[in-house]
């Protein structure tokens, strides 16, 4: 495998680095498949590798006794393993792949060393830490403020931002788990959205038909964190 060239990188964090900072990471980047349900970071366990997805979507979850509930998502706009950027070696949350893809990984000590040698690299990743913090805060806002239809719309938009095309391969059961709602609540909401011709829901597959309408339905639950990402990182998702 040839070393990755920055121009052909799909991960927005890596592609928006300065050429020098990218060059400092390049020898350490290892291509990896990111399989469905693959755990990238175990809770309360030292983080061995940091991941930069090129495709696919990973989920940050709180694994309580009642099941997993999602608090954040990461795709090609971000990285999995932010505690390392903050000088922390572990997190209480699990990170796993909810939509399969592929990406790059770097050993945590190699990233730490590169950040120690380059303030601009560290600052770049810290800006992403803030963008990620805003996204998780918006999840808290949506959970407190929005009904299931709007939360579902927000969540589908976040998936749509991170997949190629319009197909989102997820079951109702999985979405229910992620939103912290019983499955029939998600089924009704999908049924309503399907009736409005916003999407098509087949077993295990949701196809977005009308993104604009989905944004309308999500209302103020979607958009703020995405705009903040663009402002902070100087690049779209």
């Amino acid at each position, binding site marked *: 495998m040839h070393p990755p060239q920055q121009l052909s990188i799909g991960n927005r964090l890596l592609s928006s680095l300065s050429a020098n900072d990218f060059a400092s990471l390049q020898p350490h980047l290892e291509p990896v498949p990111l399989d469905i349900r693959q755990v990238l970071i175990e809770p309360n366990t030292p983080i061995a590798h940091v991941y930069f997805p090129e495709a696919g979507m990973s989920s940050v979850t709180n694994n309580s006794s009642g099941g997993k509930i999602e608090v954040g998502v990461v795709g090609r706009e971000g990285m999995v393993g932010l505690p390392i950027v903050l000088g922390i070696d572990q997190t209480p949350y699990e990170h796993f792949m909810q939509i399969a893809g592929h990406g790059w990984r770097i050993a945590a000590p190699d990233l730490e060393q590169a950040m120690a040698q380059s303030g601009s690299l560290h600052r770049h990743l810290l800006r992403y830490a803030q963008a990620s913090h805003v996204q998780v805060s918006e999840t808290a806002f949506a959970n407190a403020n929005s*009904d*299931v*239809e709007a939360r579902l719309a927000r969540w589908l938009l976040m998936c749509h931002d991170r997949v190629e095309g319009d197909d989102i391969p997820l079951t*109702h*059961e999985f979405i229910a788990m992620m939103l912290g709602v*019983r*499955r029939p609540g998600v*089924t*009704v909401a999908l049924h309503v959205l399907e009736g409005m011709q916003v999407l098509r829901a087949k077993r295990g597959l949701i196809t977005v038909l009308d993104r604009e309408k989905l944004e309308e339905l999500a209302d103020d639950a979607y958009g703020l964190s995405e705009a903040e990402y663009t402002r902070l990182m100087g690049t779209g998702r």
Partner: protein
Amino acid sequence: MPRYFLHLRYPASEDGFARDDEGDEIPDHKALRQHVIETARDLMRGARLKAIPEWLQCTFEVTDESGTVVLTLPFSDAVQ
């Protein structure tokens, strides 16, 4: 383990029927009733939907794998 499908009938201007294509694996009929009651209670407690202003007007129609209705549970029956 047998799989049961929890279809939801809800009041709406038209077509208030959310079909469950995924289902849940439940060991037996007694456990099924308990599962359906708990699901209804959880929805009433926590799921705020525009489409369903009043969960108490909803009914679960549960079918087995052959499509036969094996249990009909109005949400009002799940209230403690």
